[in-house]
């Protein structure tokens, strides 16, 4: 593990141990985090809504359980932040869009219920690129989030607010959603661990839909152990999500502990040639070097490392930008000013709907809706959406075949470290941020990002670990080994 004693930020594991043992109260932990939010979030803008009263009440309930000798749950007293596309009963859920600015859900999402049942304390709702469409949080209708490590730079996106909340110490852990890299890329840019579970491992009940066959909820954390603890709480079958996987996953907390105890001797690790970034101008040399150094570190730890080619991996970005907008154009058709959300006046129903959608959606959302509408329209369906769906089939079979010989695959997470605001104003340049992360969304496989040293401008670099469906345990084992081998970071980290 990297040196974490120089930083003032405690891990979720340390906090919940202190709360469960009575060494600290959950209320004092919540107050400390609320004080940091009050002092710092005017600048960072990690949160759309801070839930101070609810957080203190939830923390007091945890303290009562501890005092009464009851089990307060595995995340007792741990401050957690939720991306503002996860429904919270009685608390605005905006998706950082004007069209949902005043919408208050009448129910909690499944992950919210699970976190609360585990004793976690919800601190608030975090900023995102509108409807999770973007890689910098610059597309939020309520203004961007700043990277706490360097406020002239973006935190990544779309879950930039959730990443910034953890990096700034506003919450110990947080949840994001990942449709093409929206957890892993901001985790990399903020020096955090970020996990996209197997599609269907975590219930999407109460997650506002962007691209339903790709969306998945997962955690941000300071270290692999914290990420595993949150994963274990939020994963599991839910009958309210028809895509929820019935099989039970093993404990990731135990997988991490086992890796730390016995290592990864014999683990088969593949470097994906097409995602390595070698020879590509869009990849920063420090990022490519970090990917190679991570492979060396895993080999030194006893893994069997080989290079492997997955030809369709290069088509991931293109296929994604046909499939995700197509699904989005369908999902976002529900915002019409009739049943909830923004309504603008119009002389008839159609003009009212068009006026409401035109005023309520930002440019990136409009681009994707139009792109998807086009890709699905008569005469173009086969050439765009249909072709992309067939590429998706090819990609899944190629990855499945490679996984016969490898337990996990690695690559850089993002082609670059955190960039300055406005640096990627051209949509295609922005889309390219997700070139390494998109394949796991198309295949449905799990993937995560782990910090591995610093790159340009002293900003953190993330390394991505991918694994076959439902094989998160091997992914977490690898992550724990990488964390142990990672160069110490002077600028960030958490202490026990």
């Amino acid at each position, binding site marked *: 593990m990297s040196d974490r004693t120089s930083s003032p930020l405690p891990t979720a594991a340390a906090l919940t141990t202190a709360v469960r043992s009575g060494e600290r109260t959950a209320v004092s932990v919540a107050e400390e985090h609320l004080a940091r939010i009050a002092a710092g979030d005017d600048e960072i803008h990690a949160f759309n809504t801070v839930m101070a009263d609810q957080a203190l009440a939830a923390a007091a309930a945890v303290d009562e359980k501890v005092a009464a000798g009851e089990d307060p749950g595995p995340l007792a007293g741990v401050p957690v932040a939720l991306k503002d596309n996860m429904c919270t009963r009685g608390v605005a859920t905006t998706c950082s869009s004007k069209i949902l600015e005043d919408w208050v859900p009448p129910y909690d999402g499944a992950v919210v219920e699970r976190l609360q049942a585990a004793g976690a304390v919800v601190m608030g709702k975090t900023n995102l690129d509108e409807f999770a469409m973007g890689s910098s949080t610059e597309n939020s209708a309520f203004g961007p989030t700043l990277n706490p490590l360097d406020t002239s730079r973006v935190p990544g996106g779309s879950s930039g607010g959730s990443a910034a909340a953890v990096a700034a110490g506003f919450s110990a852990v947080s949840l994001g959603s990942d449709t093409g890299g929206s957890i892993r890329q901001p985790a990399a840019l903020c020096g955090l661990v970020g996990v996209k579970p197997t599609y269907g491992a975590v219930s999407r009940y109460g997650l506002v839909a962007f691209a339903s066959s790709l969306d998945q909820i997962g955690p941000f954390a300071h270290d692999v152990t914290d990420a595993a603890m949150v994963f274990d709480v939020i994963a599991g079958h839910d009958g309210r999500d028809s895509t929820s996987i019935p099989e039970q996953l093993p404990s990731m907390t135990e997988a991490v502990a086992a890796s730390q105890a016995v290592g990864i001797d014999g683990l088969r690790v593949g470097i994906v040639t097409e995602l390595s970034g070698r020879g590509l101008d869009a990849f920063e040399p420090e990022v490519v070097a970090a990917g190679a150094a991570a492979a060396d570190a895993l080999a030194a730890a006893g893994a069997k490392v080989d290079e492997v080619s997955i030809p369709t991996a290069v*088509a991931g*970005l293109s296929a994604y930008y046909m499939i995700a907008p197509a699904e989005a154009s369908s999902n976002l058709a529900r915002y019409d000013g*009739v049943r909830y959300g923004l309504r603008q006046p119009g002389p008839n129903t159609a003009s009212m709907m068009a006026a409401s959608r035109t005023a309520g959606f930002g440019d990136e959302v*409009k681009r994707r809706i139009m792109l998807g509408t086009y890709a699905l329209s008569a005469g173009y369906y086969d050439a765009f959406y249909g072709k992309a769906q067939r590429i998706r*089939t090819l990609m899944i079979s190629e990855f499945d075949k490679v996984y016969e010989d490898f337990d996990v695959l690695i690559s850089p997470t993002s082609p670059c470290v955190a960039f300055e605001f406005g640096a990627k104003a051209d949509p295609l340049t922005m889309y*390219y941020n997700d070139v390494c992360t998109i394949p796991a969304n198309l295949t449905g496989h799990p993937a995560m990002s782990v910090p591995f040293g610093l790159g340009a401008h002293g900003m953190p670099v993330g390394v991505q670990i991918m694994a076959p469906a439902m094989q998160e345990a091997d992914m977490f084992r690898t992550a724990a080994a990488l964390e142990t081998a990672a160069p110490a970071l002077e600028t960030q980290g958490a202490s026990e």
Partner: protein
Amino acid sequence: MSDTAPSPSGTEPGSPRLSTDDVAKVAQLALLELSDDELNTFTGQLAAVLDLADELNQFDTDNVAPTAHPFGLFNVFREDVPVDEIEGGDRAAELRAEALAAGPDVEENQFKVPPALGEAP
């Protein structure tokens, strides 16, 4: 490898693939209103993204089935049980009231919209 990998510099805006008329039609289908400036800007940007589809044509997919969902799920069913039987009381009425509370214009337990045909007086 740079000749096969998707690159942000490998595409040119304003592809003949997409005209402003195409985009105007798509915007109308999607119930979005665009100014002339927006129409021109969006047309160039959308054409550049559609050019990405050329990357897909290097792969032969003639005998490949499409994938709509990564794990090919079948329909999942549950029993349709009235919520009052599950939660007791008059929960259905409460839920109806909560759902209607989010409506921009509500009358007699219904969402109200301007005329569907013609125009409001």
